[in-house]
């Protein structure tokens, strides 16, 4: 915690009630409040999961693992398995996860967020859990730091799986209100909805617990109707889902809480703010360091490769719809789909992004084979060239059903 934060806390604890901190417009507002005991408290907060202390060396070897782009595709467990292997070989003194993954652009007034909806993070909790476990457990013997350049949406959930968290000054995290709202929209029966909501919330809160963050904070992040306040016992922050804490962080029952870097630091969620990697190192106490970029390279190559492959799959798939219905056209379509299938099997991110299962393409190929064989038989029997009338059709999807957006 920085000196500024400590000073701010001391100052604020002596201020009168209902003073709204002016610097928090656009994210959350913190208001001081009287502290009254409630009947039943939430259960005790989790102990932060054990994390290795940063090493006491003059010039540490720092391995950077990027988490940039879309969660679920760019940020995918498959590439991290390779990066984990590389990091093990390098034997760094510690690891920095560099997170920059947001559903909404920072310049929201200039861009329409809906324009890039297909780039929004994919809320696949099983994937997130698997990825977090792989990184936290398989590299568990190496100290780890999460540095958030921006994380608005599902990615903030990933960031909160790390207890040592730093943020850039313009960084945000939150935007998780849709997680529960989406579940609610799917079910009409009250008890079924409650069951599915509780099951989803349990999964999300479990990820936060991995980072040692309390349930009350997690609930305010995912439930629009949950308010959030905090009380301080020395350096310890006690979050609560009522307005009885010393600081009122989110009094709204209409939207889930989100944080900007300053607020996050003030309430002790982040350990400090750093705009550049060098700033971060300085904040961590290192004037000199050796930055290992091999993980960055693996990541960049992977992102470039799978995205290029995705464009190819789109192209192959769309072209396969345009070929003629004669033997030559069907053979071309089959060949295009076979190429698409190879790429789909190599990069699971494509399937996740396009919603185009490899099995579907495989079956389309099988159907084309069937048609090709039929035409060949027909040609053999009649001695005339065969084919489908009108082209298209067969096992192939109508253009509207092909790969496009999620």
């Amino acid at each position, binding site marked *: 915690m920085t000196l500024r934060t400590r000073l701010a806390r001391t100052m604020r604890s002596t201020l009168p009630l209902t003073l709204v901190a002016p610097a928090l417009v656009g994210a959350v507002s913190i208001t001081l409040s009287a502290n009254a005991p409630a*009947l*039943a*408290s*939430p*259960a*005790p*907060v*989790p*102990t932060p*999961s054990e994390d290795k202390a940063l090493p006491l060396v003059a010039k540490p070897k720092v391995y950077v693992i990027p988490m940039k782009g879309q969660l679920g595709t760019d940020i995918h467990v498959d590439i991290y398995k390779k990066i984990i292997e590389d990091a093990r070989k390098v034997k760094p003194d510690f690891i920095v996860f560099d997170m920059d993954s947001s559903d909404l652009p920072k310049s929201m007034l200039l861009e329409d967020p809906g324009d890039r909806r297909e780039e929004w993070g994919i809320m696949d909790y099983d994937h997130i*859990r698997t990825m*977090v*476990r792989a990184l*936290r*457990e398989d590299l*568990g013997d190496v100290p780890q730091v999460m540095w958030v350049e921006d994380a608005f949406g599902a990615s903030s959930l990933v960031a909160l*799986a790390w207890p040592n968290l730093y943020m850039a000054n313009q960084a945000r995290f939150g935007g998780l209100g849709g997680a529960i709202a989406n579940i609610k929209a799917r*079910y*009409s*029966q*009250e*008890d*079924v909805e*409650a*069951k*599915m*909501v*509780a*099951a989803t*919330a*349990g*999964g999300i*809160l*479990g*990820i936060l*617990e*991995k980072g040692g963050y309390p*349930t009350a904070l997690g609930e305010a992040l995912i439930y629009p109707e949950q308010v959030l306040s905090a009380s301080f016992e020395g350096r310890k922050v006690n979050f609560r889902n009522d307005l009885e804490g010393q600081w009122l962080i989110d009094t709204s029952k209409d939207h889930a809480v989100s944080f900007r870097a300053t607020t996050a630091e003030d309430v002790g969620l982040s350990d400090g703010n750093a705009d550049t990697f060098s700033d971060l190192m300085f904040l961590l106490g290192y004037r000199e360091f050796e930055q290992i970029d091999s993980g960055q390279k693996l990541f960049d190559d992977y992102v470039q490769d799978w995205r290029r492959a995705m464009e190819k799959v789109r192209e192959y798939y769309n072209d396969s719809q345009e070929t003629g219905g004669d033997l030559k056209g069907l053979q071309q379509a089959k060949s295009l789909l076979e190429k698409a299938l190879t790429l789909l099997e190599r990069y699971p991110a494509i399937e996740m992004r396009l919603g185009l299962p490899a*099995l579907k393409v*495989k*079956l389309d190929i*099988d*159907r084309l084979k*069937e*048609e090709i*064989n*039929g*035409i060949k*038989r*027909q040609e053999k*029997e009649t001695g005339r060239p065969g084919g489908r009338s009108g082209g298209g059709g067969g*096992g192939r999807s109508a253009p509207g059903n092909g790969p496009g957006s999620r």
Partner: protein
Amino acid sequence: MAAAISVTSLCLGAELRFKSGQTWRGELNDTVEVVYNEGGREQRVEGKVVRADSTMVVVETVSAGKTAKKSIFFGDVKSMKSLTAAAKTDSTSTTPATSGAKAEGNGTAGATAGASTPTAPDAKPSDGSFKGVFFLPMEGMVGTGLRHDEIEAIAKEADKAGPGQIIVLEIDSPGGMVLEAQRIHEILKDLKKRHRLVAWIKKAISAAAFTAMHCEEIYFMNLGSLGSMTMFSGMENVAKGESLEAWLALAGEVAKDSGRDPHIARCMIVKDLVCSYDIPEGGGPKDARFREDGKGQFLVDGPDTMLTFTASRALACGFSDGTADTTDELAKLMGLPEWKEYNESGRKIYRDWQALLERGTERMVELMVQLNYKGDTLGEPEKILATKLNIVEELIRWHDRCWSCAIKAQFEMGVGVPPKEYLEQIAKDIKKQIAEIRERNRENARRR
């Protein structure tokens, strides 16, 4: 500390020190007399002790030929004495028992033949006879990835090594079929009588939570969650009336038999229920006393939510016995000298089943889709029908080999596979059609 309990290895002797200062030393299956408070009155029960730890004493009684279990909260026990010669009662001593009566098995804390285990996290095998745990990972929907068949298979493996083995079920499941949960219930109920059952939770929702609650010991991974057991079928048909009551009763019984408060299970089923707890001064999570209102010291479940535990919440109220992310950490919490697996059987059962499930599901989906077009270009009706028949017969074979594959195809891949009986009827019809075509062809040939 409210209670002192120590469980030595192999002999499985336990020592309990009650609030009154009285100490009982004995073994599971001893015949005991317990004096306890209930509803402000002093009560007495005599029977076989099947559980005795710092949370609960459970005595099995026989009355009019019927066996019943009486669960008594540890804090309510005033005194307990063994009526069998093997055990000793001591009103002052706190020395751990060292009974000579050894159970067969691989000698770990609390494991004993014919009785469920007292969970003593600090209990360690001491004589080096620990041969390892039987570890079964279970992943996927209840009814497809998590099934009674695999539990039965690991039980057979454990039985080969004799009673008193440790079976660890690693659970990662979003829930599933109630029918399968019922089958699992029957097996686990029986299995826990002869082995020490442990659940290690990655994710245990709905029927998977029900499965986990059969185990006296539940450990969570940091990312773990457990709960949400509302039962519904089809398009959100929530169990009501008698079926809800039966489900509440069964889940409550399972929780109670494993030393947990039945109300916790009920809160996982009905949204409106509330649960809170108090921890007596100086007590720990295992001393938590649950209340069916929100007036306790700590709130477990509010009136608007269905209860789903995370690792820390489960630990705080004693529902979980610890949090472990790795097998080494788990071993430590379980009081084992190290993480050692008796053999590879559990992992092999898991791997083989998951491979078959994946292959079978994909094949069944393929076959169902192929049923729509395969053979259509062959021209001759008999050939077309013969191709369809081959597909239907392969589907039937897959049904026999892996009925769960059909369920997975439907629920996880959105491709409905008809029941086996229906497929058999289709096969019969196709065969009939083929026979008719052949007959017609023969007729035509004769006419020519």
